[in-house]
Each structure stands twice: as C-alpha cells, then as structure tokens.
C-alpha cells in the first residue's frame, strides 16, 4: 500500500537571524516546488515556532514542519500552547515533528541534565500523551485547527521510539542511520538495516500503515551526469567507511542525473515505503529538477 502513496518533498532549512534572509529563503523553497519547509530546534539557532509563523506569512501553500522539536526543552502543557497557537496562526499548515533530543552539549547549555536514552523517550511519550489529551480537551485554548491536532511526525531509530511512532504518528521519520553509542556522531545504515527497521515498524503498524506516511531524511544530493564521480565525492565525505558502490545503494544518498535520482526515489518508495523525502537546504536548488520527474 505504501508504494502507492503520493510523493512529498521537504527541505530542512537553516534558519538565519535576519527576517529578510529568512523570508527570501522560504519563498524560494516554495517557488522551487517543494511541499514542506522544515525548521530544526537547536540552541544557537533561531527557534522553530516564530520561524515557522514567519515562513507562513511569507509563503502561500508549503506545509510548515518542526524537524524535529527537542522535546526535553519543553514543558508539555506549555508546548501545547505554542503548537496550537502556531497551528492557528499558520491556518493549519503546521506539521509537528517531535524528537527525544540527542545533542548532549545543548542539554548542558540549557542547564538540563542529559538524561539516559530511556528517560528521553519517556519524556517524549509523556509529551505526546499530554499533547493529544489537550487537543481533545474542548476547554483547551488556543484550539487546534483540526480536532485531532496538527499531523504528528516522530523520527528516530531505536525500537522504543519507532514503537511510539507506530502507535501515535501520522508521519514516521526514518533516519537512515545505524546504531552508534549514545551521543556519538551519526553514521549511515546499510539498506538491509533500513529494511529491518521498516519491517519492525510495519509489523507494529498493522492496518494503520495505510494512514501513515514514511519520511526519510536524505543527507546528500548530487545532481551530475557522472554518477561514479559523484559517488567518489561522497566516499571522501564518509572517510572511506563505505565504498562507492555501497554508497550508491543508500537511500540517504541521491546521486545522478535528475532522471536517475527520480528512479532511485521510486525504487526507495517501492522497497522501503518512503514517500516523503526531506533534503538539506544546501541541496534544494540542485534537487529541484528531480521534482519535475516525479510529479
């Protein structure tokens, strides 16, 4: 069923400090034809809710997504007010992405203890439960635009997080990363590992799968007539941990002509069920011709 889901394409943005620069970037992403504009949540960067309200004012149709909110930064009840407030102010264009938090240094900067992975997921679960309870409460103001609240994206890799996503999310964000020690840099997962994660989620989803979108964050895009040279470039970036051929198989790495990349993306939808792809802002221009092949 997931193979038939319509494609969506999002851009994960770097939010600058200046209003003018941000407005221009947002308009450009919409003009290039993307469906979703995402803002991350890190200390030292502009915060997602005001950035998305401004993005909403600057654009007409793109969906506006927190990708992803660092749940431990927020009290769930106060977060609900920001979520439904932003949902109202953007006319229901908000898609709420929540994560358990992973950057240890930011917890330190926020004066918060860095909880264990288990505790972070516990907090995320409480946050989800609390948000859903408040959406459903007719007394809660601001009210969400839709009674069920904005679409919920949950992203992650571990069993518990994906289990939560299977239970609660409208969009499940796969990271395409492999297991690394907590707090260590991310590393790409082999396609077989992703198959396993997808199978894990599908087993949990059961019939709900028809109503859930699978998202993938793509780390690298290179539009080129020389795919081999493009992959060699990626090989340097990953410092030889994977050969060019293996890299070419990774769904988080999109290299080739627009038509080749479009084929890769169709293949990833077929194999993994990913229909919603998020790319990094630095690749947005380059990726735009690919969109035309997939509409």
């Amino acid at each position, binding site marked *: 069923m997931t193979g038939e889901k319509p494609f969506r394409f999002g851009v994960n943005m770097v939010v600058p*400090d*200046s*209003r003018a620069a*941000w407005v221009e970037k947002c308009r450009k992403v919409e003009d290039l034809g993307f469906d979703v504009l995402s803002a991350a949540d890190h*200390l*030292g*960067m*502009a*915060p997602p*809710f*005001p*950035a998305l*309200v*401004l993005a909403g*004012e600057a654009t007409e149709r793109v969906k506006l997504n927190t990708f992803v909110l660092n749940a431990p*930064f*927020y*009290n769930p*009840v*106060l977060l609900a*007010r*920001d979520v*439904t*407030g*932003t949902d*109202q*102010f*953007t*006319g229901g264009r908000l898609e709420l992405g929540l994560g358990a938090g992973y950057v240890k240094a930011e917890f330190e*900067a*926020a*004066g*918060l203890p860095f909880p264990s992975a288990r505790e972070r997921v516990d907090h995320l679960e409480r946050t989800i439960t609390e948000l859903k309870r408040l959406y459903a409460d007719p*007394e*809660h*103001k*601001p*009210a969400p635009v839709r009674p069920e609240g904005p679409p919920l994206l949950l992203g992650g890799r571990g069993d518990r997080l994906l289990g939560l996503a299977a239970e609660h999310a409208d969009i499940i964000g796969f990271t395409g990363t492999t297991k690394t020690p907590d707090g260590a840099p991310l590393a790409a997962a082999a396609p077989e590992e992703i198959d396993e994660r997808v199978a894990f989620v599908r087993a949990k989803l059961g019939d709900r799968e028809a109503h859930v979108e699978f998202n993938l964050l793509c780390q690298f895009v290179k539009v080129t007539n020389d795919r081999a040279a493009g992959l060699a470039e990626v090989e340097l970036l990953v410092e030889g941990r994977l050969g060019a051929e293996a890299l070419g198989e990774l769904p988080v790495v999109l290299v080739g002509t627009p038509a080749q990349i479009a084929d890769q993306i169709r293949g990833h939808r077929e194999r993994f069920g990913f229909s919603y792809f998020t790319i990094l802002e630095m690749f947005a221009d380059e990726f735009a011709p690919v969109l035309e092949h997939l509409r």
Partner: protein
Amino acid sequence: MRPFRFGVALYVPGSRAEWVAKCRQAENLGYDVVGVVDHLGRVAPVPALLLAAEATERIRLNTYVLNASFHNPAVLARDLAALHEFTGGRVEIGIGAGYVREEFEAAGIDWGTPGRRFGRLVDVVTEIEREFTDRPRPPLLLGGRGDRMLTFAAAHADTIALTGTAPGAPEGRLALAGSAALAERADFVKRVLDGRAAELNLMVHFVRITNDRRVALEAAHRLVPHLGVEELGELATVLVGSAEAVAEQLLRTRETLGISYFTVIEDDLTRLAPVIEKLR
C-alpha cells in the same frame, strides 16, 4: 517628565485573521505597545508577537509579562533574541515571577515559595543579559509588587511595572491596591532607583469613558468591594469619566507618581483610544 506611552495587553487566543485584526486595531487606535500575557489558555506569546510584528508597522511589541517559571532560561533567551531580530528590534521584554498557582499546578511546575519564584526570575534575567552581552539588549520591563522584586527591577529594568494590586483579595474579586498603597509602591521604586532613570508602568484595571461617572464607579465598586466609590474615583488604576477628565487624571498621575506608561487589558482596547488622542 517622560512622554506618555500606552500599551494594551492582549490575551484572547484565536485565528490568524482575528489576531492580525486586533494588532492592527491597536496600532490604528494610537497605542505605542501591543503586549501579550503569558497564561495557560491564552495566546502563545512568542508566535503571537512575531505575527503582530508582521501585521503592523510601528507599534512596539512586548511580553506583558512572561512568567519566569514557565520557561527554561536558555531556550527563552534564544526565543527572545530571534523575536528581536525578526521584528527589526521592536520587541520589549517583560518578565514577572508568576502569580497564578493553579496554572503552575496544571503545567506540573513546582509552585514553591516566593523566594524560589523570584530565583527563577533572576535566572531568566541573567540569561537574557548574557544573550545580549555583545549587542544592544531590547528594553527590559520587570513587573511585580514586593520589595525584593521591585528592588531587583530597579537595578536591572528599563521599565518598572507596578501591578496596582494588593495582596489577599477574596476569591474572584479584583485585588486592587488603594491610592495610599499604590503611592507607597511608587515611592518605594523611586527610592530604590536611587537616581537611576527608568520608566514606570502601571497596569490599568478598569476603563469606562462616560459622562455618567457615578454609575461606572458603582460598577467598579462591585468588582472591587473593598474600596469605596470615592477612592475608586481617585485611583490611578481605575479610569472613569469623560475622555477629558481621564486625560487630566493621567496627567496628574504622571505628575504625582511619576508613572508615564499605562497598559490596559484587551477588554478596554477601544475604550482608552479617545484619551490617547487627547494626550498626543
């Protein structure tokens, strides 16, 4: 003597269109500042001020006031810095220590002691001062009633906001301070300012522009039964009378208490407009 400034504290949440219309109305009515409260069930302050800036041209934007206990200092400082940048420096940061116990409980935040809540406010102000060490900080408004709070405000704030309230009102009644108590607080602020220049703000709790002053004061008295009609008629937080009379009253308040910046609540948004016009 400082020039007058007039603010309105908006609190009713709603759609984008409603919010935009309200902010534009405040600007068109001549207000200097559009503020947002920080309470559960009300508008989300940071998104609301961003949208207010987009919807208006010149009016300044303030949090009136943030509950320090509701926010992680580092996350809040980031939010306010972004708001400052995105609005072209139109933001004024207002912070208080929080006073509605039920909201703390609903959010699962420890109510603690007044000392603990004051400590959280100090943490938030310290973090904001740190955030802006390398560039001009937006004006800071600190509001409260107690000696400790007002002393801290006198040392740190550009604007010191008097709540105009008194401790211990009966449930559901407006706990307004009487004239003497309000004057005492304004004097206290002047004393702890010790010559430092700061703007004084006052929350105005009741506005009725009317030629039938007696009827309106009796209505105020029903809300504030512990103060008599005569005293309410003199009180700076209760503005009742013709536009001319209220304008005269504000001039007197500025003269006697040194308060030049007045903030009304959303319900009184249109009521104060003719008075603002007279004082320009």
